[in-house]
């Protein structure tokens, strides 16, 4: 699904990722942990194609060179990022935005656009599955949403857009236990042999609810250790310092 080789990324001549290797196969769930400033969010941004980074190295998604693919096409091909800080877009109704988004992805795959009724049915189904009040979808996109609502909205978008590779950038930060369970449910109910996940987090807490296949430790722009679920537990006890 995703193959990253010797990825280097810098912003304003400041190197952040310094030779990162990572392979995610279909159906796998990878967690990336690491201290502040280690490059976790940069990895997420680079995968979505955000402007402003100078990049070298290999970045392949489903066998295609991701570096040649525009931001929106990456989304259309099945990459989704749940933002660490979802943006507030005043005046744009969440439902209308989401319908436009879903239909542009469907269109790119040669599928027929969903009409309003079919779309609302899908939204209702996914939001009740997660236990999210669909009322938030009639509001302006993320405007006046609480931190928890913004994160839940990201997960609901993930469920509706149904991507192949979902990247969650610290989606668990600042959430109470109920919201955390909703996020975990969103991920767990989507897992199957075709869907892959990259979960970026600081804490082991989320991984009590989502069982990763692999845990990586990112430090100073490189993956310095890879293990299974137990690695996260170990980190929780010992901290990142010991690894350096």
């Amino acid at each position: 699904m995703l193959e990253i080789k010797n990825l280097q990324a810098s912003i304003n001549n400041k190197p952040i990722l310094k030779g990162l290797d990572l392979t995610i196969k279909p159906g796998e769930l990878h967690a990336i942990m690491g201290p502040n400033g280690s490059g976790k969010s940069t990895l997420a941004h680079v995968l979505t194609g955000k402007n402003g980074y100078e990049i070298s190295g290999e970045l392949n998604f489903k066998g295609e060179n991701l570096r040649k693919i525009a931001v929106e096409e990456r989304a259309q091909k099945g990459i989704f990022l749940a933002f660490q800080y979802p943006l507030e877009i005043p005046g744009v109704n969440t439902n209308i935005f989401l319908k436009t988004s879903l239909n542009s992805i469907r269109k790119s795959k040669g599928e027929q656009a969903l009409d309003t009724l079919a779309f609302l049915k899908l939204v209702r189904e996914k939001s009740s599955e997660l236990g999210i009040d669909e009322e938030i979808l009639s509001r302006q996109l993320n405007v006046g949403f609480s931190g928890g609502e913004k994160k839940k909205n990201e997960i609901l978008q993930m469920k509706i857009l149904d991507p192949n590779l979902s990247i969650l950038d610290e989606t668990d930060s600042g959430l109470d236990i109920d919201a955390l369970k909703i996020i975990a449910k969103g991920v767990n109910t989507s897992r199957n042999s075709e869907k892959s996940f990259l979960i970026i987090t600081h804490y082991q807490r989320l991984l009590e609810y989502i069982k990763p296949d692999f845990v990586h430790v990112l430090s100073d722009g490189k993956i310095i250790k890879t293990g299974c679920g137990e690695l996260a537990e170990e980190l929780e006890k010992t901290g990142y310092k010991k690894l350096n």
Partner: protein
Amino acid sequence: MQNFEINSNEIDKIKKITTEEKNFRIKNLELFRAAGFPNKRLEDWKFTDFENIVDRNFEKLDTKKVPSDINKIDLLKDFEHNYILLINGNLHSSNFDYEEKSKIKINPYDNSIDYKINKNPLVCLNHALAENGYSLEIDKNYKFKKVLVIYNFFTKDIKNKILNNKNKIKVNENAELHVIEYTINESKSKFINNVYENIILEKNSKLKNIFIQSNKSDGFFHKFLKNKLSLNSDYSNLIFSSGLKFNKLDIECDLIEENCRCNILSALFLKQNEHQEIKTLVNHLAPNCKSNQKVKNVLSSESKGVYQGKIYVKDIAQKTNAYQLSKALLLDDNAEFNSKPELEIYADDVKCSHGSSSGNIDQDSLHYLMTRGLSRNDSIKLLIKGFLNDVIEFIKNPSIKKFIESKLEEQINGR
């Protein structure tokens, strides 16, 4: 431009006027002659050098009358409405089938001369020469059932003309009126339409006005709007644009008695070399009145938007609540937005605020939308619509709202 001179005998040609009216016209003509077309040396025109604009666009100009006949006009089908049809500013016909006709008075141009001398040279020109227009009066306690569309139709044969029209709307006590001023321009040539409009709102009355056009236009539009609001009256003016090449609205509102409400809102999308200015003067002359001005401009290519907004609060106008905001979204390096907010306050217990900002599309917002599969273009369109949305939200009637949205959509899509 060499060829624009108005001879006093233009006034002699105007039929059936009293000596008093004639003197009024002559005096205004002299004022216009002395001043000429307004240019940027005048504070009120500093961002709109009209003299220069006229020079660049017209080789000659005249004020000779134009025929006002048409065969047919396509009425709007989007919602049920009454209508007044103006052809080149001249009252052609009206239809009030949805209303009690006895409650409505509609007449051609009102030739009263009860106007103060104005320092705007185009107003002087209008006072000197205007012969066309309409006068509308709504009886007290009468509330319109349907919206009134004023079709402002310009025929294809007008070229190099200055049309001077004068309109008046009086809404009497407890009456209510909702107007959409809808300009249709068939002329492919350049011309100037110079309007003076007088709006009088009596006690407890209400007037809602929407300003929009059917199509792009090469006309140059200037309108001076003088409004007088009495006790508890409620005025709102929503300004949209569907491609006027040049438009300047100069709006003066006198809030002469307590508890008036005055809303001036605008959502404009400008492109190419369109130039639009909204200038306001809201005079709080009595206590407990509320005014709200919000101007939102999206500017692309080489367009220019101007907002000069002034709030004046007289010493006796305590408990005034006046708000003013202008925001511009610039899509192009060559687009320009000028804003000049002014507050002049002589009362000590008031709430007045103003704000102005202009900026480009937020790149992080754009990226966020694009990560959801929306193309760059669609994302920008969505951000533009979001930016203009809060003015559109002011329209409560769903079919009118839909109509305005579709007009704006046409503009944005044709970007």
